């Protein structure tokens, strides 16, 4: 019995490790495609449960697989100047009134929309989650991502990625197992590096009338130097001079 059990456990262990590493490779490939080093123009639309529509336009500058990112608002006027920088897990917002950078939680809701600051800037799957490949077919992989630490935005995410490494859907669950958010990746467009979803639509099953969507309008690949990604640069705006 012992002679059968031990090799079986070993094979299972290897299989699970392989599946985990494979899943991580899929997630990293998806992130590389979705979040290149680039200057990106985005439109965020939020429709409240009362049917009110809010629009935010912004330009982001990204580096190192979205580990470093600056977001500058171009509309509405009240948001212009309230720019954001995210370095690893830390987010700072510039307060134009005081001329200072204020640290904010990544999970804070972005202007009351369905997106958190972490979602707008980047939902860092490979850093924050342990991915496990649950199922796969000819078109897609279905991965289950479980938070590594307690400060990840969601406890568990079920992510469907197609064979071209484009995300299709993301379903976010709480620790209690409740579904709290669905993310649909749609409108594939070639923005310079092959077709990829240009729009993420976020809904909550708790409030189906409330919808938020983030659309990539334009993306120009560019490598920005490291000194651009500094919170002091929120006021200096070095990247605009490059």
């Amino acid at each position, binding site marked *: 019995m012992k002679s059968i059990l031990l090799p079986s456990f070993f094979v299972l262990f290897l299989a699970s490790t392989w599946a985990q590493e494979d899943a991580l490779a899929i997630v990293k490939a998806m992130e590389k495609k979705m979040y290149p080093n680039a200057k990106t123009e985005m439109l965020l639309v939020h429709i409240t449960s009362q049917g009110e529509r809010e629009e935010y336009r912004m330009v982001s500058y990204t580096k190192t697989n979205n580990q470093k990112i600056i977001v500058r608002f171009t509309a509405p006027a009240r948001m212009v100047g309230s720019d954001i920088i995210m370095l690893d897990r830390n987010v700072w917002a510039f307060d134009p009134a005081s001329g200072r950078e204020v640290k904010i939680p990544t999970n804070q809701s972005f202007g009351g929309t369905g997106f958190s600051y972490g979602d707008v800037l980047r939902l860092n799957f490979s850093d924050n989650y342990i991915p496990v490949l649950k199922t796969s077919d000819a078109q897609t992989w279905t991965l289950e991502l479980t938070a590594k*630490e307690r400060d990840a*935005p969601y406890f568990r995410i079920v992510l469907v990625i197609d064979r071209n490494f484009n995300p299709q859907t993301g379903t976010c669950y709480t*620790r209690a197992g*409740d579904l709290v958010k669905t993310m649909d990746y749609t409108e594939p467009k070639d923005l310079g590096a092959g077709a990829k979803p240009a729009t993420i639509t976020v809904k909550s099953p708790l*409030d189906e009338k409330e919808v938020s969507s983030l659309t990539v309008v334009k993306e120009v690949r560019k490598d920005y130097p490291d000194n651009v990604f500094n919170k002091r640069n929120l006021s200096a705006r070095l990247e605009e001079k490059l």
Partner: protein
Amino acid sequence: MLSLKLALRNIPAHGQRNLIIGVVTAAVCAFLFLFLSFSDGEIENIQNGVGGFYNPPSDILAYNPDFFFAADRHEPTAEKTIRDADKIRNAMEALPEVQEAVPRFWGLYMDFWAKNKKYLGFSLVAAQPRDLFLHAKYKITAGRDIGEADNHVVLLHRTAAENLPLVPGDEITIVGKDYFGQVSSAKVTLIGFFDPLMDNPNLTNAALIDPTAFGTLAGYGPDEVNRLLIRLKPGVDTGRGLAALQTWSNRSGIPLDFRRTDAMGNNDGFTLIYGMVRVIFVVMVLLTLLITGFGIMNVVAVNLHDRQKEIGTYFCLGSEKPFLMRLYTWEILFVNLGGAMAGIVLGLALRELINALGITSTDPGFQVVVGGGRFALGLSPSSFYWIVGGVTLITILTSLTTLGKALNVPPVVAVRETE
């Protein structure tokens, strides 16, 4: 002290005038005592009401040993928890010095979904079934209270029963961010509505929830809490209790950081706000006493003008001006202190009378002003000290600044037939 002896003899000799001054001082002090009692009542109401829910009293607090190290370095403290809280609580309650140890969470602010509608901004309070202090702070108006066997249940404020279409038995989904910023949720059953004995608008959005559901929403595992509130048995000195807990901690090998609650400073926001209001009240009392003091000293100066013969006689007998300053300062100080004491006694009597009226209201404006649903005039030693100390200080100050002029009397007036 000759000046003291003469002052005591002068008071009855000029009884009518001193009586008038004493009555004025007593009236002012009675009013100011009630003024400060109102502030005391506000603070008592807050501590018994909102404070009782959000920051209940304790003698000693127990923390994770790394908690203050992280806090001092401005690092996140949510991870610095006490695990196996239930086991630790039972062990602590077995100590002869400890009356109860209550596992305690920081507050959480979350949204409710029920019957396809969203209700924003509820302040969650973990109601430990064995927390006798908390359960004594409210009564159930519908349904039942949270018990030991309850899991994933919630109690809402009585106003929720009036304003929301919810009844006991309804299922509510609570969603928000946990202590780590992660989205968390829990499905709970509404089991009833509570009515705080000392209500306040800040409690209308409070939701009492069982500790298991609270822990889930907070992002914590079972039996994981932020801190333990320890209440000692009556008569047990806090120092003795602290020593007993530290000895127990060392022996049991459960490292905890024990802190005296009274040495932690007041972190209750509501008490701090009303404490600041009290500072304003005290300043107003001192200003009123200062103005009254100068008024009284003017009366005293007129009084002394009428007593020029007496002052001249003192000078003829060889008295110096500093001696007379002392004499008349003693005299007015005794009159004013007597008036102040009489005022405080009158204030105490009025306080009893007003409290006996039992003025209550459910009006939010009223509750904000008086700190709770019942108009109560409180009592604290500081009110007594401020009035007596203020009267003493201001009498001495005004005496030193105004008496000198009144004592500029030539000795010859002692023998003048008329002015």
